[in-house]
């Protein structure tokens, strides 16, 4: 099978869905002529033109809110917020309007809207361009949250998100864009809300998503050589949460380590840990362990940035400590 980069997989998903459905259009900052800050939309403006690939002003509230207005009046917008850090400006639109409008209207409207954004550390960009804010979104009922870690998942999940009649926040990771993986030429979709067991194991379950999942796979590979059998799960979708896949794995391994780049306090690992306690307490042989981002604004200095987020070694260390 051919290999393509994560950014290319996203680009293909956009291009295919725009070709298929004239209701799909893209808008955001620098998405057209420039091709996106991380070049994800490159080529699409030339292919689909000014009307369907729209550069906007630097106006995050208007971008996201106008996405809603277009979605409830017959379009299927994909809006881009350049950095997830900028979502703060659009949070009223997301929390008060987008997530609630269908429920508040008694189900009499639908919101086929995708908000694509990008987060994470790794480029020493400092505190305003390195955050992992997914827990802001998972806290709000009424939106789906997708965070793919591979090109294959990125493409299949984005196509599904665009066809979804509900709002989806789709978060990419800036350090994944140039990672490569197998993606079939033929069309496929992946279901939103299904975790993926990347590797079977029996001693401990290692759960993650987005870039940190790749660290987990490397950690698991090394641990395997040291005699520890690790089951690795890529959550892929945070909301709705595929708790069954997690619980089934915990019933087998009796231990759970959750790793994510977002802050530990109030992070999504805490929610998963609570649900595992509620549903599988008797199967746990050890407390659920969290390996998360340090509770500080992301520092610029490269050594401090590395210290602030999980890596292969900190994940390995946590797994080993749990097995003692």
């Amino acid at each position, binding site marked *: 099978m051919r290999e393509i980069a994560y950014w290319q997989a996203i680009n293909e998903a956009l291009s295919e869905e725009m070709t298929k459905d004239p209701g799909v259009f893209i808008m955001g900052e620098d998405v057209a002529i420039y091709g996106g800050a991380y070049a994800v939309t490159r080529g699409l403006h030339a292919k689909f033109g000014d009307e369907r690939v729209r550069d906007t002003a630097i106006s*995050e509230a208007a971008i996201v*809110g106008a996405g809603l*207005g277009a979605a409830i009046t017959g379009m299927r917008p994909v809006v881009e917020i350049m950095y997830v850090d900028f979502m703060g400006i659009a949070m009223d639109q997301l929390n008060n309007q987008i997530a609630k409008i269908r429920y508040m209207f*008694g189900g*009499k409207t639908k919101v086929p809207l995708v908000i694509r954004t990008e987060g994470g550390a790794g480029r020493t960009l400092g505190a305003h361009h390195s955050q992992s804010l997914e827990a802001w979104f998972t806290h709000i009922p009424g939106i789906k949250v997708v965070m793919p870690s591979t090109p294959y998942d990125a493409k299949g999940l984005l196509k599904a998100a665009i066809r979804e009649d509900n709002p989806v926040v789709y978060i990419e990771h800036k350090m994944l864009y140039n990672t490569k993986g197998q993606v079939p030429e033929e069309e496929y979709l992946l279901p939103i809300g299904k975790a993926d067991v990347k590797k079977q194991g029996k001693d401990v379950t290692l759960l993650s998503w987005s870039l940190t999942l790749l660290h987990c796979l490397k950690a698991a590979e090394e641990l395997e050589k040291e005699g520890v059998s690790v089951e690795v799960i890529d959550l892929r979708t945070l909301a709705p949460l595929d708790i069954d896949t997690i619980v089934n794995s915990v019933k087998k391994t009796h231990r759970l380590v959750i790793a994510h780049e977002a802050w530990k306090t109030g992070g999504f690992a805490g929610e998963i840990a609570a649900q595992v306690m509620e549903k599988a307490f008797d199967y746990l042989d050890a407390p659920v362990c969290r390996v998360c981002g340090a509770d500080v604004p992301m520092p610029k200095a490269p050594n401090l940035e590395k210290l602030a987020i999980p890596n292969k070694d900190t994940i390995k260390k946590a797994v080993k400590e749990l097995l003692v």
Partner: protein
Amino acid sequence: MSPLKDKGTAIFYLQKMMEIRQFEDKIMDLLAQNIAEGGSHLYAGEEAVAVGAMAALRPDDFITSTHRGHGHAIAKGGKLNELMAEILGKATGCCKGKGGSLHLADVSTGNLGANGIVGGGLAMAAGAGLSIKLRKTDQVTLCFIGDGATNQGVFHESLNMVGTWRLPVIYIVENNLYGMSVSVKRASAVTDLAKKAVPYNMPAVTVFGQDVLAVKDAVEAYVKSARAGNGPAMVVCDTYRYYGHSRSDPRVYRTKEEEKYWAEQDPIKLFSVKCVKEGLLSQKDVEELDKFVENEIEEATKFAIDSPLPNDAELFTDLFA
């Protein structure tokens, strides 16, 4: 100003304004008796704005409304029974009792909803305008906002987007002089709110918002222009809310003299006097209409009170499509 075409049109405008007035007076009653619970921001006094503006629209046009949205919902064609039931949180309401006063919406009439957030409809209206452009129809979107919303950040983001892309959105600014208790003079660097359209390259006009025909003429001209592809505009309507901001408002920030002045500018009185004076309606027509509307509101109230609350099972429905 365009003369009224016929008696039927005069009756329609007057009836819609009376419906809004009596609807709001009834809700004040229901609040006082604790039959209606929760908050309600009443539109009484501002009827000519909603009715005049909506008279310029087609049924397939969109509006976004405000926290003071009952009048918009009625004028856009919402059914009185369903609107009243929604305000009481009943299963028969237009949003199945899940929205309430602050979220009154009837998308089947093109009303994209009242909003609990001041300025909450601004970006949505821009998107509805964009959708019209992309779908290549000649619909328009009216975005109702109050004077207070013109100070929100999203006002400027949205008007800039609409102005840049020349979208068919017309802003109806209901300047009722106060954002809750703070007067326009104390809250806005410019008190001539029409000036706030200028940086976004759209024409604006200020009209006497108690005159239904003046509102209609101004909105109609811009609607026609927007349908022809000439982009957005703003109509600032000077108006006044008779009740306070909400039920708990003692109105200490405004004077009895000011309230008296505006009571004399009552939109229903002004219009009915004009119709009688011009021989379009008789005093008896006006009285009969008033009585007819009274019955409509009584029926709607009875319907709402007699309607059941939603089933408990409704708690988790309608979150996702």
